[in-house]
């Protein structure tokens, strides 16, 4: 019959459709939205202190020659509590850590630090998530590795696990 190849077009389209389905069933969707703001300078910001007795955070303070971590957290975030010991371990290893508290109140931050320890040199209060958005971050906790020039080199989404601690130290060391 003429144009008989046309009759196979629906079958071919179905094949493509099923290809997409099989791909999705075997490679599950990545649910985390990774920041695209990597290898770019820290966005400009000047955040007030998140609670009494701790310094606020300015972006200009992040380019002082020392590689560091910027931890995006919140007192109301339960996984952030699970992350506290790892941050303490990093702190003990001499890693400078700054914090950005998302949508938080001074009393709550103070209580959080009392219960979980304070590994932070400075904590900026980001009450309207504007720095979080400028960083391309979409959840708490998230941790950014910043080199000495204030360039963001890596984003870690979710809780830092104990076995990640030496890796992070090594990476920051390499940036020196």
């Amino acid at each position, binding site marked *: 019959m003429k144009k008989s190849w046309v009759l196979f077009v629906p079958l071919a389209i179905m094949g493509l*459709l099923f290809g997409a*389905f099989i*791909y*999705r*069933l075997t490679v599950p*969707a*990545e649910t985390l939205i990774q920041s695209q703001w990597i290898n770019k300078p820290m966005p400009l910001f000047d955040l007030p202190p998140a609670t009494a007795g701790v310094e606020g955070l300015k972006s200009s303070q992040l380019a002082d020659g020392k590689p560091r971590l910027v931890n995006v957290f919140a007192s109301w975030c339960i996984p952030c509590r699970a992350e506290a010991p790892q941050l303490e371990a990093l702190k003990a290893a001499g890693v400078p850590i700054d914090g950005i508290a998302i949508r938080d109140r001074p009393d709550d931050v103070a209580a959080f630090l009392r219960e979980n320890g304070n590994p932070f040199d400075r904590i900026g209060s980001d009450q309207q998530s504007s720095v979080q958005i400028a960083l391309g971050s979409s959840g708490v906790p998230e941790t950014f590795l910043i080199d000495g020039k204030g360039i963001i080199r890596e984003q870690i989404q979710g809780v830092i696990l104990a076995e990640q601690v030496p890796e992070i130290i090594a990476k920051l060391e390499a940036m020196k």
Partner: protein
Amino acid sequence: MIAELGLALLWIAAALACLSLVAGIVFLRTGKDDLAALVRPASVAQGLLTATAFALLIALFVRSDMSVELVARNSHSLKPMLFKVAGAWGNHEGSMLLWLTILGVSGALVAIFEKRLRNDTLVATLAAQAALSLGFFAFLLFSSNPFKRLPVAPPDGQGLNPLLQDPGLAFHPPTLYVGYVGISVAFSFAVGALITREIGPAFARAMRPWVLGSWIFLTLGITAGSYWAYYELGWGGWWFWDPVENVSLIPWLAGTALLHSVAVTATRNALRAWTVMLAVIAFSMSMVGTFIVRSGLLTSVHSFAVDPERGTFLLALMAIYIGGALTLFAMRAGAVAEGKKFALMSREGSLVINNLLLTTILALVLLGTLYPIVAEAMGEKISVGPPYYNKVAGPLALILCLVMVAGPLLSWRKDDGKKLWSRLPAAAFAGAAVLFGLVLFGGKVGVLPLLGMTVAGVVAVASIAPLWKRNLRRTPLPTWGMVIAHFGVAVALAGMAAESAFIKERLVAAAPGETVKVDDFSVKFAGVSPVAGPNYTAIRGTLIATTPSGASFTLHPEARMFPGLMGTAPTETNEAALLTRPGGQLYVVLGQPVPGADGMSADRYQLRLWWKPLVWWIWLGGALIAIGAALSLLGRAQLIEIWRVRRARKAQERFA
């Protein structure tokens, strides 16, 4: 005992499906009539038994029999009765049983009522329907048994997603399912006709009522679903181009195309292969849609009860059915004569363009829905949403509406373009009037809504034109049906366009006693009070809306809190309050309390108020489309005629 009986009935029904399939195949191979005689009764019995099993499942939910796992997981003894019943299909297993019930009952109805087809085609159709059932029986019995007992019955159940505890939504999934699965009959007819090579007007006429019938339910289901999203999600949107919405729209688009092409095949014996393929596509898309929703393949605002593992089973089933049918089509359709030719300027010509545009829209909705997967495979994460569909599908849909203006006014085979124009002055005038009115007095209106309202004006007038100068009493029901359905499209289109062009939004934090202006309404926020529902607590706001003419109405939006039952998380929902007026709807949502300066006490509440002009026309239009299709079905199925003949026959027998 009820659960065990239900399971037993399912196994027997599955065996009957197996019998129909085997008997059908043997008959088609050897031509032995004695086996063919089994197929009809087996199909009827299978439908009956499956329906009984489904009724038993509902009985278990009504009795709150917590020893059954499905009931314990999805119900609670304190739930209102309506939601206990609806709980039976508000979950994966129950909805699959519902799916099978509709599949079985449709097969049974074909077996009982279909008299027009050749016997071998009918047997092939029923065997195809049995094959469909058999796969889903396997799925249900091996991987999602709804009647599974728990070793120890818990004291009470875990409840049901509060978002789904809504009377409208209780009946939304079954309606949609009747549509989804009803179209399986068209699929089976197509497969049957391909097997016996009987593709012609008789086949098209046999298939037509089934397409119409399931299309009515699809239309109602989508319309109701859109209304549900509108008032339940609390933001006043009525269509989000969300994956779950899209996959319900796709079978509807296929059904709409099929409805029109089957008309050409039935009346003019043309477009035969195309009609067969659309019948296959329509049910294939229903299965694909169910698969996407059930497997949680795509993130959606509407997704619930998802399980990727079952997705694999469904995918394999679909591959067999769709792949098999399309392969059969590719092998056989080449031998199907396409039928009579016709001019572009003819009823058939306009229907071909209609089908071309509808399938293009179908393809683009499917493409847009699945493209994020394709892009991710290429290493890019993207989102496809309203801007894409509005830009690409919007213009096509408007052109489609204009074709709809011309089609019914053209005669079959060949017509004259000049004559068409002579039939359209009133419609063209209406369109021009709307366009000028909007440009002069409408203020700033987007291009798409502007064209939408203009086209709606044209369609509204032109859709009535087929009744012009006709004896209305003698006008056949299908013509009435077409006129009403096409008019419904105009009504819905006008509603969509007017709502998006003229919507007024007010977001305020108001203290009790304050008055807010929205469009012409002044709305006084009288205050809030706590209320306790049957299974939730709520804060109920009282608002008094006053129109310019001085009429006032009280609205009660609620913020509801459903406690977490048996360890599940508590859920909050917003119940919007709606005030329907001739010109549109006032939509009011009570949001969060706003903490005062001390951060603790709340003296103000977030209020979201919208005036949505003509918004209810969207669903009125949907209802009109369904009513039109129902009239058409009544005319096509000739039920009245059959009833008259039977009564006359009975009367004769009495006198004989």
